[in-house]
């Protein structure tokens, strides 16, 4: 069993309204050290594939196909092996 952690954000040139609003909220709370905020999505997905390469391939395909809209989002991910299927 593999665990994929997938991080989705807007591409650079796309407006991130949430990030802007969170940033100004942090500033209002006096966290003025905050320079920039990007808001994105985070997925943890457990996969039961034969090996890590297969898991990676699957993650890459379904992320492009479903999790993101390639017109405006991009993703990165980490993949790790899970000792055993927990719950």
């Amino acid at each position: 069993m593999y665990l994929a952690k997938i991080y989705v954000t807007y591409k650079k040139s796309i407006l991130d309204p949430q990030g802007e609003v969170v940033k100004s909220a942090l500033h209002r709370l006096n966290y003025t050290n905050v320079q920039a905020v990007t808001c994105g999505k985070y997925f943890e997905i457990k996969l039961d594939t034969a090996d890590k390469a297969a898991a990676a391939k699957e993650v890459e395909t379904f992320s492009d196909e479903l999790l993101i809209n390639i017109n405006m989002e991009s993703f990165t991910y980490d993949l790790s092996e899970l000792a055993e299927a927990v719950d």
Partner: protein
Amino acid sequence: MRAAVINFPGSNCVLDMYYALKDFRLDAEIVDANQENLDGFSAIFLPGGFSYGDYLRTGAIARFAPAMKGVAKAAKDGRLVVGICNGFQILTEAGLLPGALRENAKPGFICDEITLNVANPDSIFSSAYDKLQITLPIAHGAGNYYADAQTLASLKAHQQIIFTYEDNPNGSLDDIAGIVNQAGNVFGMMPHPERAVDPLLGNTDGRAFFQSILQRKDLLTHAD
């Protein structure tokens, strides 16, 4: 009595609430969320909408608006605080009501009219209802009430659950639609009584909600 309707950036049911209060001849006023001092108001209404876009989480940013200091003080003083929809979300985020509101169990915004049970007809916010089932509009994407087991037990023990859904539309724990705090003066609900006060719009089941509040003149004399 003077009633304040707090206008957070992004609130969008401010006028709905204001007109409803006016309909009951209350001395209502729209107050900007930047105003910290709410001492002059005996009842404070946090209306529906998408405060700060509801970006991040519903109500998460609004709870830090200056007016929330005044709201917290009013709550402590025993004055009335009412949060409808987004207002309810803000009150839970602010810790003035227990629990939290998550996105609907089946994700997506729902606008409909639903049947509610008046679970506690003796509260300040329900005493004028002469029937135990009413119909009110809902319009929310995050109305799924959550509380841990201990909180839920305490809500029940103190009769804090005022309204429940007959057909749970959003996955709320124990069908909870509206609750009060233990002291009984801070109330929040997802359904919209202020949208159901005018016969022309086809539903007047919200009227008794406001009438309930008006019955408690003792609580409303604060700033008169």
